[in-house]
């Protein structure tokens, strides 16, 4: 099978599993709505719209984290990882397929989150949406990679956020900058750079994460 | 000592203390290694006698 077909098959597997189980997506959606509610109470009366914009990004990052905690659970529980590794596909296809699935979940949740944010706080403008789209790519690429790394650890639920958050700080900076600052092109360009750089190194080094 | 001098001294002291702390940790580790080596020598001696 071709590389693209492998990736598509792997991504489709995850999306179908979620379609049937309906566990992760509702949880992520509920989480993001709860988070936005908490943020309302976390912002004193004199806070500006800008502070709320920043918190939107916090919500996105932590919702992604919630979804990522489940990313490789099924594979591990049923010993599927070894099977995937032994399969005659490029190991990086495992990463890419899973990352695309996570991207699907995150995008689906944002379809709910962004309108909710617009209603709770202030309208979401074009640069913000563009930033969210670009940031999603980086978050899913790095997040999937880190989730696979954490899956090998005894304390995987603890280690995943610790590994994920420092890596995702530049994404938050890019996203908030695009939402808040004047010249958003600069921040969108930076997000694109982040996505490109980290996608490449994730793709190149995933092999070493799943093999010995 | 002026305030500036106090802070500069503090900064250098921090570096000094951290390095000394490191030395302490290494010293403790060396003691432990020595003790382990002693135990292993005992084990080896018992092996060669028995």
């Amino acid at each position: 099978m071709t590389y693209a077909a492998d990736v598509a098959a792997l991504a489709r597997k995850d999306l179908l599993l979620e379609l049937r189980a309906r566990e992760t997506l509702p949880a992520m959606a509920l989480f993001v709505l709860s988070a936005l509610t908490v943020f309302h109470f976390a912002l004193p009366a004199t806070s500006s719209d800008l502070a709320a914009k920043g918190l939107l990004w916090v919500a996105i990052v932590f919702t992604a984290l919630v979804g990522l905690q489940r990313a490789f659970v099924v594979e591990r529980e049923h010993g599927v990882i070894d099977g995937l590794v032994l399969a005659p596909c490029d190991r990086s296809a495992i990463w890419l397929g899973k990352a695309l699935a996570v991207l699907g979940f995150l995008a689906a949740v944002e379809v709910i989150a962004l309108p909710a944010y617009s209603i709770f706080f202030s309208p979401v403008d074009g640069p913000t949406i563009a930033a969210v789209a670009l940031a999603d790519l980086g978050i899913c690429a790095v997040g999937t990679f880190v989730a696979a790394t954490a899956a090998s650890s005894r304390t995987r639920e603890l280690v995943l956020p610790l590994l994920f958050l420092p890596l995702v700080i530049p994404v938050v900076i890019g996203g908030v900058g695009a939402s808040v600052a004047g010249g958003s092109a600069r921040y969108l360009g930076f997000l694109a750079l982040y996505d490109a750089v980290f996608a490449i190194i994730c793709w190149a080094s995933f092999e070493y994460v799943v093999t010995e | 000592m002026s305030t500036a001098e106090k802070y500069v001294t503090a900064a250098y002291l921090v570096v000094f203390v951290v390095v000394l702390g490191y030395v302490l940790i290494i010293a403790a580790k060396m003691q432990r290694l020595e003790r382990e080596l002693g135990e292993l020598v005992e084990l080896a001696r018992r092996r060669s006698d028995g």
Partner: protein
Amino acid sequence: MSLRNNRLAAWAALALGLSAAALALIFFVAPNDADQGFSQRIFYFHVPIALTAYGCFFVGAWKAFRHLWKGDPTADLESYVAIHQGVIFGVLTLATGSIWAKISWGHWWLWSEKQLTLFLVLFLFYSAYFMLRFSVDDGPQRANLSAVYALFGVVLIPISFLAIRLAQNYIHPVVFTRHGPAFHGTILWTFCVSLAAMLALAATLYRIELTGKRLDSRLRELRELLA
């Protein structure tokens, strides 16, 4: 004494000599800065410590690369020790930078200090390295995961630096500026000697820790053979 012991002693002697020379230069020879006065002397330690920390992280990444690419058997341990050194010097960077900020501007922490913020991010990142390493059982997988993470670290350094620079535009206006010392004459020399001293110190501590860990693993091996 084997050759390895001699090398460690040589590095230690070099570190000692350079540190003594650096301290003498810093406190007796270098002139007071026109702008900041006496407090500028922290700079002679703070910046070399920061540069040494970067150096350690790069060495860690280089050893990690050698582990993954060449399968060098000692590279995993060397990478781990280098990153450990990097974190220690990173913490020292944060501590000395914080004290310098306190003297210069009266605040223990300044988000507008890009170097300091970058080191905070790196400290978080490399601390997670240890969390990861200690939560995976010893073996080839732990070595691989650690190596890949170390490589991600050096990619993160420039990206984070760029990001933090971008963030300055919307976080708050840059109110505090610090004029770097004019790099000439005594100041340049003092700085170079201090930098050399820090690097030698890092190299010495690195070798000491590496020797300690190698001893540890060989004793363990011996114990298994005898038991």
